[in-house]
């Protein structure tokens, strides 16, 4: 039944010397990163540093000025089948005229998938994010957290192995944010997808990530890459109480502060 039974299906993503300028203003300079299959990578940095810009380059929505992004040795020049996007503004990325199910189905219809297969797959992905029974609702009938779950289900149904999320939980309340963070960890564990999360929230970054990349400066460069050894299973209370957690958190916070 489950469309993602193969673990570790995600291809590696390589960011090779990516720079980006808007006109004469250079925003990103020479970023080099690697996202391993099944890894959760968090990107943190101060507001306006260029996180969204980086994510748009990674997704193929925008070409970098120089350097390249590769997914499984294929250079990303336009949005790829392997990549699913979840935007910061959950109000804007779901089609308000479509029900939950139709929203998840839409990309599959674009792939010319057989409709009954597509339905079945969409329903199973909605169940995967805990939205069984909400298929016929419109976005305005759902809470912000539920809408963001729909966006995640849509990426999963599309068969994305790499999830790109731009401050996905920024506008949600704390409890909902915790639930969705755990959902992301759970999906990674069960489906073997890679996830790249851009966030403002350093706690969130340390809690979710296998590695945290810290961006800073104008133009932005990678000033540190922090490995987080908290294991694949995490707990909102226990993990955040660990000494290691607060050590990492303090380190990242200091780095961002020092650069300012």
């Amino acid at each position, binding site marked *: 039944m489950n469309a993602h039974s193969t673990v570790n299906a995600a291809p590696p993503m390589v960011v090779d010397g990516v720079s980006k300028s808007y006109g004469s203003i250079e925003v990103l300079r020479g970023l080099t990163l690697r996202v391993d299959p099944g890894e959760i990578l968090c990107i943190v940095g101060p507001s306006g540093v260029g996180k969204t810009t980086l994510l748009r380059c990674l997704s*193929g*929505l925008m070409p970098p000025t120089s350097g390249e992004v590769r997914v499984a040795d294929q250079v990303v020049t336009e949005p790829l089948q392997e990549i699913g996007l979840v935007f910061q503004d959950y109000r804007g990325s779901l089609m308000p005229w479509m029900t939950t199910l139709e929203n998840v189905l839409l990309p599959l219809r*674009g792939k010319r998938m057989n409709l009954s297969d597509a339905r079945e797959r969409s329903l199973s992905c909605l169940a995967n994010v805990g939205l069984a029974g909400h298929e016929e609702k419109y976005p305005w009938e759902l809470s912000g957290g539920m809408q963001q779950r729909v966006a995640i289900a849509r990426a999963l149904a599309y068969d994305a192995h790499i999830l790109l999320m731009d401050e996905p939980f920024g506008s949600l309340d704390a409890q909902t944010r915790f639930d969705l963070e755990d959902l992301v960890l759970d999906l990674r564990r069960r489906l073997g997808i890679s996830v790249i999360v851009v966030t403002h929230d350093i706690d969130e970054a340390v809690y979710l990530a296998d590695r945290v990349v810290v961006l800073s400066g104008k133009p932005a460069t990678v000033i540190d890459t922090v490995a987080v050894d908290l294991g694949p299973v995490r707990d909102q209370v226990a993990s955040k109480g660990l000494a290691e957690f607060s050590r990492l958190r303090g380190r990242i916070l200091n780095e961002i502060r020092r650069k300012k």
Partner: protein
Amino acid sequence: MARRIGKHWWIYEIVQFATYFWLPVVLVALWWFISSDSQSFFMPPLSEIVQTLLNDIGNGELLEAAAFSMRNVGTGLSAAIVLGVSFGLLIGYNSVLRSAVWPLIAFLRAIPGVAIIPIVLVAFGVGPGPQIFVIALGCVWPILLNTIDGVRGIQSSITDTARAYRLPRALFIRQVLLPAATPQIMAGIRISLAVSLTIMVVSEFSAGNQGLGVYISSGVQSFAPSQVWAGTVFIGLIGYLTNVAFVLIERRILAWYFEIPRRTATKITSIAGAENERA
């Protein structure tokens, strides 16, 4: 409120109802009594007007005229919708095309539809064809401009999503662009509805041998003022009912936009809406 009144809630409902209806009822009653012994040739008693109205509805004359007129309005408006929406999607979506044709559109749409009427009617004669043509010509601009605005106003997060999920162009236009622009398109159609009725009336006043306008103007020629009044009242009723029907359809099509829960009886209390759209 209703709870406080308890088991006499129906009194409250009647009072509510009455607040909407008392003034029109009073005005019609005043008209009735003041005009009842009117000696003025041009202002016949309301009773006489109603008599004519019922008479000509009964013998089919008015209904036939209305059917002719409204068929022209419906056909012309439909043509305008098809043309306006298709070209609007194309022009709104393609920024190169839009910047190129914009001044020409601004120039053409400035020419009032009513000014075209005599030119077309003398060229092509009277009859449904030319009348449908002028109605379509007058109605296409508000729909075209509103569709262009609607497409341009689409949120970038929506177009980004469509690109990220690689929607093929046809699917994108049908499932994303068109629904996203629909609220604005409906606003344009609403303006065009008013335009279509005006053009219908003017074109039938200036030439023609059938239709509501002809019914009225033949009343002028044959010095039958009660026929003029009856026809005018009838056009008013048609205009009102058409607008009510439009609002019902709009609320159905745009249920997602107005966030109307499904399977809920919706009461419309007014057909008014802010006119911030491009007229």
